[in-house]
């Protein structure tokens, strides 16, 4: 049966920093993005590896899960990157 919109189905799995670091590093390596050119830790630098990785871990611990928790009916709205325009294009 279709899920009701917005139904929370929270499943919390806490990952360690090491687990998340492995995920982040693997993902970036697959894309060919190299953080090692940054200083490891330098508060005076525009960016350093410690801060970038800390931000990435927190992002992964929060945003993907929050979005996934918002359930939508499979027959519900299609992905729409220009919602206002779609409405106008359909003369609504």
């Amino acid at each position, binding site marked *: 049966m279709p899920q009701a*919109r*917005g139904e929370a189905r929270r499943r919390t799995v806490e990952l360690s920093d090491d687990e998340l670091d492995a995920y*982040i590093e693997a*993902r*970036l390596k697959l*894309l*060919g*993005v*190299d*953080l090692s*050119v*940054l200083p490891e830790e330098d508060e005076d630098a*525009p*960016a350093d590896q*410690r*801060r*970038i990785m*800390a*931000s*990435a*871990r*927190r*992002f*992964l*611990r*929060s*945003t*993907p899960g*929050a*979005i*996934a928790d*918002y359930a*939508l009916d499979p027959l*519900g*709205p*299609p*992905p*729409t*990157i*220009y*919602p*206002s*325009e*779609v*409405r*106008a*294009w*359909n003369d*609504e």
Partner: protein
Amino acid sequence: MSELNRRRFLERMTSLSATAMVAPAGLAATAPRASARSDAPTIVPRRSASRARGRVGRPLVLPDIERRQVADLTELTLVEAAAALRDREISAVELLEAYLDRIDRWDEAHYRAFNLVASAEAREAARVADAALAARSGAGDPLTGIPLAIKDNYFTAGVRTTANSYLYEDFVPDFDATSWARLRDAGAILLGKTQMGPLATTAASTPDGERTTRNAWAPFSEEVSPGGSSSGSATAVAGRMAASSTGTQTGGSITNPSNAQGLTGIKPTMGRVSLHGILPLTYTRDHPGPLARDAIDAAAMLAVMAGPDPADPRSMGLPPVPDYVAAVRPVDRAGRPALRRPLRVGVLPDFLREPEPPATEPEQDPTPDADRVGSAPPPPDRSESRYRRELTIGAARRAALRTLEELGAEVLELGFPRDWETLTSFHFNNVRLPERSEIFLEHLRDDVRKFGVSLSPWINGLLLPGAEYVRGQRGRLVLLRSILDDVFGRCDVVTQTAPFPFDMVGLPLIGFPIGFETESAGVPRPIGGMFGAEPYAEDRLLELVAAYQRVTEWHRRRPADPDELREASGSSSEPGSGRYDLFDVMERGE
């Protein structure tokens, strides 16, 4: 809202993907180095005319207005100046020199609104404009001789366009962005390119985080934000260094700097103004629009900028562009200023919400800054000064609603649309990040240092899986339907306290001044109001603000010059001394 016409929808999407913009060719990878304001414009001969005119519509006739007598030409609004030029009361050269004089006096030392001032080319253009005005005896292009400040992510043919980024520090486009081409074709003069957040990510700064632009109302306060990434454009207009300006809004950067600096800025509906020739931050949330001195100027600017452009399929097949200038023409009923049409103003619960009392003791942030970045909105400011400021803002909002009622509006209290809290949350707002990362993926693979202080959101965008991205895009349509059904089923315009929700679904917003407060900076600081409307109903927003500005004076206030403000604030701080760090970038991010 009825179900989608899937065939037409898919046709549109196919067309869009086939014409996706790419980074300009010939951009060599450059090693990171400090970037500073440039006083020497990089201007090369124009190699090709602007593409993609294709605009259809009525000729623009600016409204007749009651012209004020001013001692300084930079006090004139755009429409006042255009009328004075048309009637040969002033010359384009005189007007330009008045602006250049203020730029020379104040910009480098205090405001830092521009990163390029095209004075030589502008002087030549002003001479040409004066000749044209003389030959036409008052007729001609409506903006002839009007100096404009253009955000530095708009392509300007032959003039360096850097987006304040290492990636584009030497880039000189060979064509004009469509919206700038339309302003130029209407007679406007390119006065300069404005400071912005690197690649439009955050408040104006150099790529390594050195803050550049100050709020013209408080240039000596580091605590007073100039607004979002279009803050150079806002400071240029608020500091009376340009008649009007252009900006782009992905996460608030037309309405926020307008609110911060007492301007009237309009973020049009997605597609209403072509994005062709504007460096993208995202493909689906970038909106170009004007930052102006009042609603009449905003209407004039938008009327020129708006319209279909074959080079940007997002601008095609939309409802006809309304007559924005007609929308701001004054109407009286029973001898009193009135709204042009009946108007229902919806008020969402957050607009008049009482602020939280100040905390008795400073709250301890549970996590270090670097660990909090990217995961949650910043904690609320619970200071006494913030509390007093919010009380003043609440009073200004109530007064603005009373004024609208006196003008004939019906004010309705509304609840939030369904799922509003979830779908406008920080996390759903983050769905934009993969779009940003995809656009600049080659540069991220080449050298992440090119992204300077704003690197973190670009990396996070690479980490959001596709399933969540698609769900976020589905959520956008749910959000739009909720807004249309639950809000615009009952009203014509609605209050907003943050730009993100309407940015997410491409709906139009207008920001304009509704008061002032002195609690937070020791000097007068504008309070902004923000309203949104249905898709392509920018005219309703302009009607509302134009009528409001007929009976209020907030939009006419101008900041004192920096020397006076320095004395009033008792500050010895010099601009340019602060830096944005990673944390600031995430908090102020577009």
